[in-house]
């Protein structure tokens, strides 16, 4: 701030001060009213600290991240689906599937495949799937993924798919046929009631099944976090993640058309957590480890016998 201030500025100072104060107060009042009406008033009570702050260290509130947040996840969906949210995923998986299940033969087992297996694969997921897209060598697959998405937001998200353009998931599945759909979602929503995520997950799988009736579905367990990460972010503990995985991906897998994949043992610290040596932030594996993840995926292929749908690339949908 310069000490030299000329007379004109000096004369105007009270005016500037008054208008700044008044406009700040007026806009603040509007802001307060708006967030109170929207029921987000609790955001005002967040102090933005949890634990200690050293010099110039970035700290982000993790004390009570959840409570005021649900609103950011598309209010409408939350509201309209709340009543049915508590149905367990298993129940939510539809009668519609039963026909499919009957059609399917005996349980299939995983086998080792090569990269071309992923020619007709679609990976759906959050930032961990973004990691696979960026660092795993399956450039032949399609990726419908975006950082931060979850079971509630995935159907409303638009993503750019090579050869298709910017599209939502529903539209993508209507325009392009995939032999395999890999799904990994839910971790971003752990601040919510986990039963809600479970219910929503079941309905999402149902929806995918309807949109892509003859695709194989690979439901992937959410990645665990490191022990340290869980300590700082109490909502993200591995017990909850395990519970979520067990009641979504694992529970829904039938070994016929829906398969459960759990990559966690690959990155385990020996105690059921993500190994801190494999992660920079406690919730993702390092870029280079997606190669190992990809190698592991190649050992988890499902190849159907005669009834196998045509796996050629770029098949049009039969709809």
């Amino acid at each position, binding site marked *: 701030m310069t000490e030299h201030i000329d007379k004109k500025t000096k004369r105007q100072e009270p005016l500037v001060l008054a208008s700044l104060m008044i406009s700040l107060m007026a806009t603040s009042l509007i802001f307060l009213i708006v967030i109170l009406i929207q029921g987000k008033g609790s955001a005002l009570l967040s102090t933005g600290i949890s634990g200690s702050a050293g010099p110039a260290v*970035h700290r982000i509130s993790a004390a009570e991240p959840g409570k005021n947040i649900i609103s950011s996840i598309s209010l409408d969906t939350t509201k309209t689906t709340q009543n049915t949210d508590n149905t367990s995923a298993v129940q939510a998986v539809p009668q519609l599937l039963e026909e499919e299940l009957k059609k399917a033969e005996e349980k299939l087992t995983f086998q080792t495949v090569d990269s071309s297996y992923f020619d007709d694969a679609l990976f759906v997921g959050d930032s961990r799937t973004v990691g696979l897209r960026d660092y795993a060598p399956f450039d032949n697959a399609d990726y419908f993924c975006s950082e931060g998405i979850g079971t509630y937001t995935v159907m409303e998200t638009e993503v750019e798919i090579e050869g298709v353009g910017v599209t939502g998931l529903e539209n993508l599945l209507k325009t392009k046929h995939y032999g395999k759909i890999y799904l990994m979602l839910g971790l971003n929503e752990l601040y919510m009631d986990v039963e809600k995520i479970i219910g929503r997950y079941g309905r999402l799988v149902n929806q995918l099944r309807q949109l892509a009736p003859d695709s194989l579905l690979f439901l992937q367990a959410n990645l665990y976090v490191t022990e340290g990460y869980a300590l700082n972010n109490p909502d993200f503990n591995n017990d909850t993640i395990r519970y979520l995985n067990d009641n979504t991906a694992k529970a829904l897998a039938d070994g016929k058309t829906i398969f459960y994949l759990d990559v966690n043992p690959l990155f385990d610290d020996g105690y059921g957590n993500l190994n801190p040596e494999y992660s920079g932030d406690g919730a993702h594996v390092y870029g280079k480890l997606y190669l190992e993840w990809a190698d592991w995926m190649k050992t988890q292929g499902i190849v159907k016998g005669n009834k196998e749908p045509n796996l050629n690339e770029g098949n049009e949908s039969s709809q």
Partner: protein
Amino acid sequence: MLFNSLAFLFIFFPLVLLGTYLVSRKQRNLVLLIASILFMLMACGTSFRSLQGLIAGLVSADFWLLAGYIMINYLLGLGIRYQKKTSGKKGLLIAGLVLDGAPLLLYKVFGQVPLGLSFYTFQAVSYLADVYSGKARGEKSLTKFTVYMAMFPRILQGPIIRYGDIAKSLYQRKLTDRNLLQGLEDLIIGLGMKVILAGQIGRLWSNIQTIGAESISTPLAWMGAIAYSLQLYFDFAGYSRMAIGMGRMLGLTLPENFNYPYISTTMGEFWRRWHMTLGSWFRDYIYIPLGGNRKGSLRTVLNMLVVWLFTGFWHGFGWNFILWGLLTFGLIVLERYVTGKTMDRFKVLGHIYMALVIPLMWMVFANTDFTVLGQYFARLFFVPSPYAMAGDYLKYGQTYGLWLILGIVMATPGPARLYELLKKKLPLAAVPVLLAVFWVSVYWIFKGQSDPFMYFHF
């Protein structure tokens, strides 16, 4: 509670301000005292949604450690003031230095440093030293002393103040329109630096942490180093600026802490512009008492070495901080005896030199693991990564490129000069500018709170 939280900006600080203006001049320090205690309780607790948060603060070791520091140094200060014999004064001073220094040392080595300890220890030491040398008088009012040690605008991250500098404004808390306006301006601009610039630019650095130093390309490694440098500056300088602004609004003059460090042409100049209150503390309470530059070149260099080892250690207990301190020392010695004059004469050369040295030095500072540090430097210097995503710098450049450019521009004095010029021509123009900065910041805070992963990139 952090300055960049809605609770602070919309509830806590307005109430403190209102309280300060409503009470009589003599009670202003009392208001500040109560506010500071509450602030510390909330900072040490987890939240103030409920009484539980405050109680958590009340039973936290951090809170009582500060209280203990205040009591001990208050008594020692008075002891030194009223002790007649020099030997007695000296004894008390030494006792104080040991009592103040030991916890900081132990915490740095063995555990997580309590809230604000790194900062208020230095204020306690400078206070005792100043009372001993006669630069300041031992304070009789416990209220004033507590406010000096723990005033909320600067308790968590400085600036580090000296008792002699603040005593005048503690005794005469003058509230003027000009200070209110200038303070508000500083508060809003500091908030913008911290929330908008540091917040956005910092995300690139967190992304790189997630990917890992082994899996990034050389251009991305440099982008990361620049992002970290900018984030650190805007975060810390923004915080200091907010503290200074709030101080002004409350009738307290706090010292400047940053003066465009990134336009320096030498490392020595950089440290006269970066975290200035820390640098001057080391100069006045370590370097000069050791003899400074008055005892020949060898002693001067040795004294500088001690100062830089201390500076490294102050920032963290780890080999990388020692290395960082030693490298800074090496560069400053080199400048002092070899290259300095050339850099002074050819400013462009100095800027090029600093443009390389600043991000590199911060990378030594930021990567606390030596293996990762090695990997990062390998990436910086063209050892290609077999794991990097092709064109990763394009992906992140699209998201952060403009932010990096904006950050570099904002780290120079240009925009501030332009703003001053604008205000001279049209004083009222400040209003929409400040209003915009404030509300964009609040928008980001709100978004960050309602989306806890904005920074985590889940």
